[in-house]
């Protein structure tokens, strides 16, 4: 009795009905994720939606659907379904190829038989490929690593979470004849803990640098400049300042915010000085000019481009790529040698009769 219900459960778990049911749920949840903005904080949701809706969104994890528990469970269930379905069909295919299968094949002529077998094999490959893609994608998704480094040429930056350091040798922007940006290229060295060069290469858009599973992308750039803060002529701090960031002197409770740089014929910058948490002065200034406020002096000079590089590691990419290839191959075979020929010819026969 127990064995029978176990068997029944197994048959259900590997059924196409269950598979389609899960696919529909995955699809619906995916849709939800495109309509509700993802990854905001609770406050932003309560701003946009009613209290009830916000609670539902947070409670069900709809603020991060694709990493939510429900989504995970559905994916695992679907993977199981596809695995069981593929496994059981694998044995059926072997039987078919041995020619000891059901009666239906006997009724057909020989060409149909072979085409059908190839079709079944194609269909099996297709589903097996999908299974591989899902498994390898999930693995990569769960173990995904991402970090970023940025700086101006000459800097060495360590990558948090790894033992690597990146040395930025050069950053250039290529233009075409009409002055339109063609490419951003960072020339970088990858260093280990003791600053030995592991790899020296470049990272450009659509052409990342790769090392041991890590990929270095050229993702953004902006302006940076040297900034010095003085008090009554005495140096307080000197460092590189990036657009949209501040250089602060905590002991004095003062800082300068580098809003934007305008690289025209007369290069200008937009800045804001903040003192004790308040903005006390905001203005444009020619680059290199000393900005004064009370006994403080600020000097922003030597503007240069900085590069922003993202470092990612997504495992299982080769597996997913092989899965995708098998999937496409299987699809090609399935549509070249359609399986439902059997059903059709049988149906037609009975219809004619």
């Amino acid at each position, binding site marked *: 009795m127990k064995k029978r219900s176990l068997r029944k459960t197994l048959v259900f778990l590997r059924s196409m009905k269950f598979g*389609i049911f899960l696919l*529909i749920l995955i699809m619906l949840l995916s849709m939800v*994720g495109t309509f509700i903005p993802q990854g905001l904080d609770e406050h932003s949701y309560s701003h946009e939606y009613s209290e009830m809706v916000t609670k539902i969104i947070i409670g069900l994890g709809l603020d991060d659907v694709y990493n939510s528990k429900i989504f995970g469970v559905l994916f695992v269930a679907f993977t199981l379904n596809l695995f069981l379905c593929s496994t059981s069909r694998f044995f059926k295919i072997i039987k078919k190829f041995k020619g000891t299968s059901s009666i239906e094949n006997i009724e057909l002529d020989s060409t149909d038989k072979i085409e059908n077998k190839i079709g079944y094999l194609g269909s099996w490959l297709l589903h097996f490929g999908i299974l591989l893609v899902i498994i390898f994608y999930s693995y990569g998704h769960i173990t995904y690593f991402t970090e970023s480094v940025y700086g101006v040429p000459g800097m060495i930056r360590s990558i948090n979470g790894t033992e690597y350091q990146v040395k930025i040798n050069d950053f250039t922007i290529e233009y075409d004849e009409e002055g339109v940006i063609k490419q951003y290229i960072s020339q970088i060295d990858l260093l280990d803990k003791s600053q030995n060069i592991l790899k020296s290469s470049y990272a450009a858009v*659509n052409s990342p640098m790769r090392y041991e599973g890590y990929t270095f992308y050229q993702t953004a750039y902006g302006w940076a400049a040297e900034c010095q803060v003085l008090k009554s002529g005495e140096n307080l701090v000197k460092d590189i300042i990036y657009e949209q960031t501040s250089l602060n002197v905590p002991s004095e409770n003062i800082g300068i915010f580098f809003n934007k740089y305008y690289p025209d014929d007369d290069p200008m910058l937009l800045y804001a000085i903040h003192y004790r948490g308040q903005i006390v002065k905001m203005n444009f200034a020619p680059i290199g000019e000393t900005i004064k406020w009370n006994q403080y002096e600020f000097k922003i000079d030597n503007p240069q481009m900085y590069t922003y590089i993202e470092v990612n590691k997504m495992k299982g990419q080769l597996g997913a790529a092989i899965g995708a290839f098998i999937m496409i191959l299987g*699809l090609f075979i399935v549509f070249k040698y359609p399986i439902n020929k059997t*059903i059709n010819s049988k149906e037609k026969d009975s219809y004619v009769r």
Partner: protein
Amino acid sequence: MLGEKEGLIIAIILYVLAMFIYIMLFTSKKIEYSKYGSWLIRFGFIFHTIAILNRTVEAGRLPLASQYEFATSFAWAISLSFIVYEWKYKFKTLGIFVTPFILGVTAYAAMQSSEIKPLLPVLQSKWLFFHVSTAIFSYGSFAIACALSTIFIIRERLKNDEFTLKHLPQQEALDQMAYKAISFGFFMLTIVIVTGAIWAERAWGRYWRWDPKETWSFITWIIYAIYLHVRLNKGWKNKKAAIYAIAGFAAVIFTYIGVNTLLSGFHSYL
């Protein structure tokens, strides 16, 4: 010299004329008109081709990189498919169902900015061009399946109209053609998704990041996968399959236009 804009305008005028001829064919029940409609579309296609060639030369690349370019190329591909299909299947009334699609897509193109913009570095990838050109065929096949399914439904309703019945394909043939179109569209969509993933990997470091456009192409993929399964397994054919194919096409439209206009994501510059 005939430029891109002039070429396109002449093409549109010819397509509109063709559509009127096809409407007249049905109202006056004169099948001879199909010949004129067909020729008008062919001439329209020639001018359409001139327009696209012009743009290709001017931009120095295939015109597949903005909503406007994608839409004009897409309409061009539908027009080409029509010519091939009509010639192959001798399906004389096909034009009435295809011209609205061509004009609809061209009208959408006309609403977009046609300015030739230099390619952002991230769009300069051969994978992108594989991705977009396969998308045209995938969307095109689903559009054809939708049109054939519509004909199926119309034909069923017009049981007593002999003229229409005579000049529309048999129900069974329509059903089979729609199925073939969906199979091909599904195969192409799979390639679209895979090439898109490869491009995303090279550009952003993740081959799949659930941005709205990606997610909606995944949803479309699932919708048609379900179609293929229920057809094979539950024997959903004819009317049920036709209604499903028409509804499924709404997802294609949403993936193509809705995502760009209503949702935001990384693909929004496309």
